[in-house]
């Protein structure tokens, strides 16, 4: 990771990678969602409403994955003082919040025909809502600290502490009685209870959204680097 501590070296890789991730992600999303919506079979119990799976699950994974990224970047900022870590954490926050919101909204739309309600204060949904509030807090705190010219240490500590919510979300369906279904895919055991005809479009969709998420983060990092460059030059001009 320290290889990319130099912004010039980072930009050399980020420029071609942004376009590649963006186009590959968009193509894969189109393919997987078309497959999930038109070709994959309906669920034997939930019927057609289970097709929401192909947008809901990737959004949930990216919402949680985004905060994992923030926590790792915050740790790198606090321990190794990686110069791009704070910038990366800030770049992840907004898309992470968007995907967390999409997870809650699509879950709510799935809940109405399946459970008969848009919302229930159960463990999984409530902990996911807490994650959305954590994202909003992180964005506000990061913006305020940046405005004051701070190094972002308070924001980084917040990013690390907020990671406590991730295992709560993951195990909420185990620890508490919940309306939400249990875990269907285990990456640790490399097993799934979902039939292959539904699993492949789901994995395709998750990969597509992940690639696009990566492209969005790189775009936001590049924008921030360009803004910092202009700011630094203006300061230099003012000093002359």
């Amino acid at each position, binding site marked *: 990771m320290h290889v990319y501590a130099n912004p010039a070296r980072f930009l050399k890789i980020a420029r071609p990678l942004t376009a590649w991730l963006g186009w590959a992600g968009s193509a894969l999303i189109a393919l997987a969602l078309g497959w999930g919506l038109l070709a994959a079979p309906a669920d034997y119990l939930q019927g057609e409403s289970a097709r929401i799976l192909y947008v809901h699950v990737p959004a949930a994974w990216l919402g949680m994955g985004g905060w994992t990224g923030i926590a790792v970047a915050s740790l790198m900022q606090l321990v190794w003082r990686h110069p791009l870590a704070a910038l990366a954490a800030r770049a992840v926050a907004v898309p992470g919040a968007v995907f967390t919101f999409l997870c809650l909204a699509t879950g709510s739309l799935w809940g109405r025909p399946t459970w008969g309600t848009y919302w229930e204060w159960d463990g999984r949904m409530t902990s996911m809502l807490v994650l959305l509030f954590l994202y909003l807090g992180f964005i506000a705190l990061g913006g305020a600290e940046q405005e004051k010219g701070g190094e972002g240490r308070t924001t980084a500590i917040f990013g690390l502490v907020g990671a406590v919510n991730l295992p709560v979300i993951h195990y909420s369906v185990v620890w508490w009685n919940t309306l939400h279904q249990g875990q269907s895919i285990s990456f640790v055991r490399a097993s799934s209870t979902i039939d292959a005809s539904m699993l492949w479009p789901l994995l395709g969709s998750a990969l597509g959204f992940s690639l*696009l998420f990566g492209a969005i983060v790189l*775009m936001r990092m590049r924008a921030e680097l360009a803004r910092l460059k202009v700011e630094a030059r203006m300061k230099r001009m003012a000093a002359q």
Partner: protein
Amino acid sequence: MNPWPFVIAAYALTLAGTGGIALWSWAAMRRAEAEAATFRSSPGFPGEVAAKRTEGGPPPRSARPPSPAKAGDELPGRGR
């Protein structure tokens, strides 16, 4: 209950949200990088201002425009 309106709403919301954040980030990146590029070539750039001050002979060494900028040179906390 007909599930299709819920399915369509979920897909539309996801595509609108994802497309929206992608386009917004792309536009912000293009704007910021264009601004940085314009700033570098503008007449207000420190090297050019100093060169204009010394009318006549060649500008002193200190007033010459800096070497072609390497991206990230001006950034604080540059990696070693």
